[in-house]
């Protein structure tokens, strides 16, 4: 079948005419599945890579201390909640959580375990307290500049280190 455009002067037309056949250009067909569009989208969403976030964000005084404030708060408060609730419900389960009993158990723990736990609790509690005071200081409008954040941040870190050292070992 001769193409209608074979008589034109355009180079494209001449090339097409020279081919003398229609070139069949198509993308390879994918297998037809019964998957719905939603299922396909779900699979795509699950296999999609996530842009780098926490792994590449430079640790800064602002967000590291803020994250620590929340984490130490949750740690200390969560632990205290569980312990206090356990103490409240102890008679129901026949547990004896009186101070003498628990103190004896704590005393029998190996020293590294004891020191490690005490350091963790002391560090978390003191950091949260001092950073909390820093937040209250900010809430009065003081030191809300970059330098202020750094100064107060260093003060909190120093106070936390001292308090943790004292509470853990003395």
């Amino acid at each position, binding site marked *: 079948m001769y193409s209608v455009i074979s008589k034109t002067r355009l180079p494209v037309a001449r090339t097409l005419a020279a081919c003398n056949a229609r070139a069949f250009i198509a993308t390879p067909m994918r297998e037809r599945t019964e998957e719905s569009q939603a299922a396909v989208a779900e699979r795509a969403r699950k296999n999609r890579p996530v842009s780098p976030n926490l792994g590449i964000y430079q640790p800064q005084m602002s967000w590291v201390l803020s994250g620590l404030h929340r984490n130490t708060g949750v740690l200390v408060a969560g632990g205290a*909640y569980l312990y*206090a609730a356990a*103490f*409240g*419900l102890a008679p129901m389960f026949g547990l004896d959580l009186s*101070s*003498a009993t628990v103190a004896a158990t704590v005393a029998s723990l190996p*020293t590294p375990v004891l020191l490690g736990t005490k350091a963790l609790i002391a560090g978390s509690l003191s950091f949260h307290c001092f950073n909390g005071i820093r937040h209250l200081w900010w809430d009065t409008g003081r030191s809300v500049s970059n330098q202020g954040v750094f100064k107060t941040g260093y003060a909190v870190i120093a106070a936390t280190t001292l308090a943790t050292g004292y509470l853990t070992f003395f």
Partner: protein
Amino acid sequence: MFARTLVKRSGVPAMAMQQMTLRTARPLLFKATKPKQLFGDEVPNPPAVPQPPANRLKGSYHWMNERAVSLISVPLLATAFVYGSHPINDMLLGIVLPVHAYMGFQQVLLDYFEYRRWPMISRVLKGALVTITGLAMFGAWRINTTDVGLTAYFGRLWNANKTKKTE
């Protein structure tokens, strides 16, 4: 409910009554514009979103309550660490610390399980938070009444190995 005093103070008609400003000793960092004086029978524009009624437990009052509880807990904890055990201090700690923890966890829940995105989970977790806070306050009360008190209890556990050494 808040009709009398606010109308007398500002002379603004009923609909603007919802704006309760917070009076602090220090001037606010960011100046909020006050509603302009209305002439004659002018009526203020109705809010685009219906304003919830002013509540001393919500909004900026909740923010202030958070700071108040945090502020109170500082001298309480300082007393516990510096002075030691005292029944009144223990009682106050047993009330203030769970409330502070409750408000902190509430913020965490708001951040990660907001109601509009997670309607079921957020309700479940809120109920769980209320339950565990109640249990914790009950436990603190029980420590204060049937045992040596919060501060002394913590002290005994903390210094357990030391008393063993000196014996």
